């Protein structure tokens, strides 16, 4: 189900800058845990795979229109690691950063 991250254009939504768009590929299961931070760099990231098939929040994201193949445009991110403002299907959504990190998109 989950493709290896071979394609360089396949990035988490959080990697997009303001004004950039991408097409949703998949919503990653589980959550990313940041283990250490040094000099502002994340040196270890591990993807914890979820056990449940679709946890509530994934379903919620999909229900809000972030289905695979949907175009998402990042409008901006709130400062200090805040949420993302995105345009999806003609409406404006606020997505917490943890959520946005789990959405894999293909950069346009």
């Amino acid at each position, binding site marked *: *189900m989950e493709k290896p991250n071979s394609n360089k254009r396949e990035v988490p939504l959080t990697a997009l800058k303001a004004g950039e768009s991408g097409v949703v590929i*998949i*919503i990653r299961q589980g*959550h990313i845990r940041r283990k250490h931070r040094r000099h502002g760099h994340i040196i270890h990231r591990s993807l914890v795979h979820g056990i449940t*098939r*679709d*946890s*509530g*929040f*994934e*379903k*919620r*994201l*999909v*229900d*809000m*229109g972030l*289905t*695979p*193949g*949907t175009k998402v445009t990042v409008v*901006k991110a*709130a*400062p*200090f*690691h*805040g*949420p993302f*403002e995105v345009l999806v*299907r*003609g*409406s*404006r*959504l*606020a*997505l*917490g*950063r*943890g*959520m946005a990190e789990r959405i894999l998109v293909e950069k346009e």
Partner: protein
Amino acid sequence: MNKKKLLIALAGNANVGKSVIFNHLTGLHQHIGNWPGKTVERAEGTLHFKGYTIDIVDLPGIYSLSTYSLEELVSRKYIAVERPDVVINVIDASVLERNLFFTLQLMELETPMVICLNQMDIAKSKGVQVDVKKLEQLLGIPVMPTVAVKGVGIAKLLEKAIETIEKKQAKPPQVTYGEEVEEKIGKIVEKMKNVHLVYPARYVGIKLLEGDEEIEREIQRINPQIVDAAKKLAGEIECIHGHCCSTVMTSERYEAAGCIARAAQKLVSPIKPTKVERLHNFTTHRVTGYLTLVFSLLLIFYSIFTFGDYTSGLLSDLLYALEPFFASVLGTGFVGQLLWGGAMEGLIAGITIVLPYIIPFYLILYFLENSGYLSRIAFLMDNIMHKIGLHGKAFIPMMLGFGCNVPACLGCRIMETQRERLLAAFVVTLVPCAATTVIILGLVGDYLGVHWALALYIVDFVIIFALGRLAFKVVPGEPTALIMEMHDYRWPHMKTILKQTWFRVAEFIKIAFPLIIVGSLALKLADVLGWLETIASVLSPVTVTWLGLPAITGITLIFGVLRKELSLVMLAALLAPTGLASMTPVQMIVFTLVAMLYIPCIATIAALFRDFGWKKSLFITVFEIAFAILVGGIAMRLLTLFM
């Protein structure tokens, strides 16, 4: 004329103007309560039209009919079980695609429907032209355009709804999925022949494929084989598409919604930043956004407290002027004292909170909510709220908590899950409300200086932060994140704001007043019978030995449960003739600290009880008393080292 009863349900996304339509239809004949056993609000109203008595139920604003939130579950159960004669689906013409996605799900419940295409004016100003006839034709459901804030089209909408009922119009047309999905739905429906649920068989088939927990549970009870078969079929779909089955089906639904939206709407003017767009950018900007937020909050609190203080004083003077009259009628004996000092003073306490503070607070809150600013606040505050394990939306009840903890506790309903509601409510009860502010400023602020008062606030924020994090760790459940639509700014409908405020205030009165009055009666009784001294001495190991306070504070802190600032007012009276000045600085700080933390007042406990049951409310209450005493004692010992 024969009086026939009809039942109409209003359903739709959040912020589509559903409550405005509800208010237009029902006027003041409405009743707001909770769904049985749920912390989900239920608004009902009645109206009379063409000889019918029509009950209207305003379902919560939701985006889907899954089991993600309590609201979604409640809504779909209501439609399936109560079978309204017609469901009016309110949709926002300016965000057609997202709204139609919900419409398609409603259609699957197979109840007769009418679509109310609202906010035609906003759509027009955004350059979206919707072809009503075309939309009607594509959906196979009657569509009525409206501009609810101006009352345009409401009467016609109602007529259409009645017409749909009278014509006994069949269920809405089926939404069809891709071939491979349809085939699987068919297989499940086949198996369901002898199974009868409140939900239509096709709906059950769809939901089983999606892995819907509630439906799975119900079918499991009746025939577990069906669930197993459905799981296998869902697996096949997953193999074909490479996504989980519910995602596949949601995608197809969105696909269908998108097709209908594109066919029925025409985008005329090029999308350029409009006035609302510029306002949005300004209020969510990394610099101007926060400046606006701070400025608005300061302005709101300053004006509410100034207005509240003035009006509260005025009202209390006015009401206390009745005392001689009461005394002359009831005498100053046992009964007279009880009735005035107990019941009447309790009532006065209630009135002087509600009119000056609660009403303006709700007015402003609903103005901000309906205009769209609250969602921007949640956006800006999300990262800060995450530090205590909650997300941006939780800032709104917290903000309310500075005014009064009661509406703040009730306001925790905006959180999605029961866990988040409880966490938010717990944090909210620690926020210093207006009454606590009176104690902080009136005692520490007046006698020790503003910097000490400020320090106490900071201590409180640190405690909120620490306990919030702790509760987040202790209460089991999934961590949460913000997923929220930010609709365009709009000028709110004033009548709706007034009505929402009115119903909230009525709710507050219903929760708080009986308790305040009974409580103050009970305390007055204890006073008249001369039990207060005994109580004070029973409590003295805590108050005198551990906290180092005058014994009399035991009594005043008990009175504070009724209404927090009462503990200060009484203390001043009981410490006469020297008054509060006879306390040492350490005593003042410790007393304020304890009063600030020790218990949500009786009305707050009632509000907690209403939404979370007695176990959790009792736990929060006992915990906070113990915590306040602990912190107070430690503070006393630390402060005596320095002061």
